[in-house]
């Protein structure tokens, strides 16, 4: 499995951190601990896998940093599933800005991961989305109550 690549970019009082690869037993967040900032933006767009060892390291890392603002963005389905399941994956005061949700297009017979903004979700219901190819309405392809559970956290 590909080792996690961590890219950092500091702009003013915000550090932008982008992950690519697997957050698993081989992950090492120690280089991030030394990066102290007031605002953190974590981009999970290219995380391919996360397992319980990786989650433990992530929570350990979060416990070591102090922040005023923290944002998770572009969270793929595997991250959302962990956020829903594991207490501490997202810290109080942290905002989940955007994520992917599984939809299905019956007319194209294909799965579509739709990028959603948390702010656009009402009452933990999947918003209506159309297929980017045929423009037909997509069907949400997960258990709504479970999938959007994180919004109440």
């Amino acid at each position, binding site marked *: 499995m590909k080792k996690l690549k961590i890219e950092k970019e500091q702009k003013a009082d915000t550090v932008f951190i982008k992950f690519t690869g697997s957050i698993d037993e081989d992950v090492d967040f120690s280089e991030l601990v030394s990066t102290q900032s007031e605002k953190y933006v974590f981009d999970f767009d290219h995380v391919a896998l996360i397992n319980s060892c990786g989650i433990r390291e992530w929570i350990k890392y979060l416990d070591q940093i102090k922040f005023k603002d923290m944002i998770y963005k572009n969270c793929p389905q595997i991250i959302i*599933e962990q956020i829903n*399941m594991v207490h501490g994956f997202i810290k109080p005061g942290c905002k989940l800005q955007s994520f992917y949700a599984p939809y299905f297009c019956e007319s194209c017979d294909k799965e579509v991961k739709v990028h959603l903004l948390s702010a656009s979700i009402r009452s933990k219901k999947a918003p209506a989305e159309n297929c980017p190819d045929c423009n037909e309405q997509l069907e949400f392809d997960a258990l709504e109550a479970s*999938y959007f559970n994180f919004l109440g956290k």
Partner: protein
Amino acid sequence: MSNFETFDHIFDATIGLDLKGNIVYFNNQALIFFKLSLRQFKQRNRLNELFTAKEIDLNQWISESLLTFSLKVSEETHIRFLHDETECTVILKLIPIETEHGNRYALIFQDKTLEHTLHTKYKEQVDLLKDTHQQIINADKLSTLGQLTASISHEINNPLTIACGHSELLNDFINSPDPMEHLDLLKSTAKNISESLERMNKIVINMKSFLNDQEEAKTYCNTQTIIENASRWVKAQYPSSEIEVKINSHPNHLILANPLKAEQAILNLVKNACEALMDSQTASPRIVIQTTIKQNHVIVSVADNGPGISEQLRSELFKPFSTNKRAGKGTGLGLSICSKIMNSHKGSIKLLDSQKGAHFILAFPTTEHYSLLQSGTDNQAKKVLIIDNDAEILNHFDQILKDTQVNIIGSGDISLATKALNQMNIDLVLLNPHFSSDSLEAIKASKAPLIFLTSEELKSQIPFEGELLLKPYSAKDVNNIIAKVL
């Protein structure tokens, strides 16, 4: 279906089944575990459309539970997902549930894949570490070998000089007008050449055995000889140094050891002492090596008057890579190897507190105590105590009797042998009678049958009556006389 709702909130993938094996429920974790979307999962009605189990027959396993409507838990098993061919390690739990629609089952998948993966990774890493450790040990061996080369050259040089000298003599005799006139001299010269070459061959064989790690067999060794070999290294390695090596050892202190390994352990301590003395430029540098007997052990003590070992290093001293030598001067493995060698000899290594310099002791079990430690393995075998201070004699008997139903306990010291007689049920004593008569009386008093080891010339000096075994102690004679007495 209200009873299945409990499973919505657990962290294990759960599938509900009716009595016909149809899927009637699944929780969100099942979607995550099987990596299927809601739509994909809904399209599957039976377990065999989801996965196959490797170690168990799933239908039979479930049927057994259906008969008794009881809880069933599987061994760890591998399952293969049909949609993507990936494998997981799980423990399956089948729980009977009474619902408003009748009896149902909840099949819970306890995912052990990560534990399994981590265990495999751990094993691979341990294997890698073992390989690396072995490589380092081998590297250290080569380094030791390099240092031993000086000693080996020195050892080979003596028989080589003798062989060269005698071959020149041989040449002179052959070229003389009447070579047959010098027949006796020719014979003795040829014998000397042959013995010298044999000695060189033995040195080379020992060196090969050191490199190939095939030297596990233990033999009776005289600590004095081992210490002298190790101290010879100092003279060869530091010919012009002022280091004085003082040896105070007893010729009867025998141990049951691998001579090369025992020598390596002592040599490592001597080497460390020499390097410390040279580096610190200690005035009147001195190394004292002595042997004593204490609590069933032959204690080999190596002490120097150098700078000693720092407090910081003491606690880590016998762990690999502990060194206070300068970078590049040592691998830090010498003492850890010593410790390993001593463990393999049922002995120990210790650093003593000393006011000046470093003072190490190696404790080898006495040959008698070593035999006592080993004696638990075969209580049926007859025990034969052989008392002779010549390690070669003891090894000779060991070779003859190794494949028989006899356990031999060799002893080089009459007082230790007497002690062994009192501690163990000895069936027979083979004794070299050339010890003091008081000691012999103690042996005689033990009532164990006695056979004297002697020669045709000395047999008249035997102080009291007993069976005699005469030199050269042939295998046939040894077996016959032991069979006769036992």
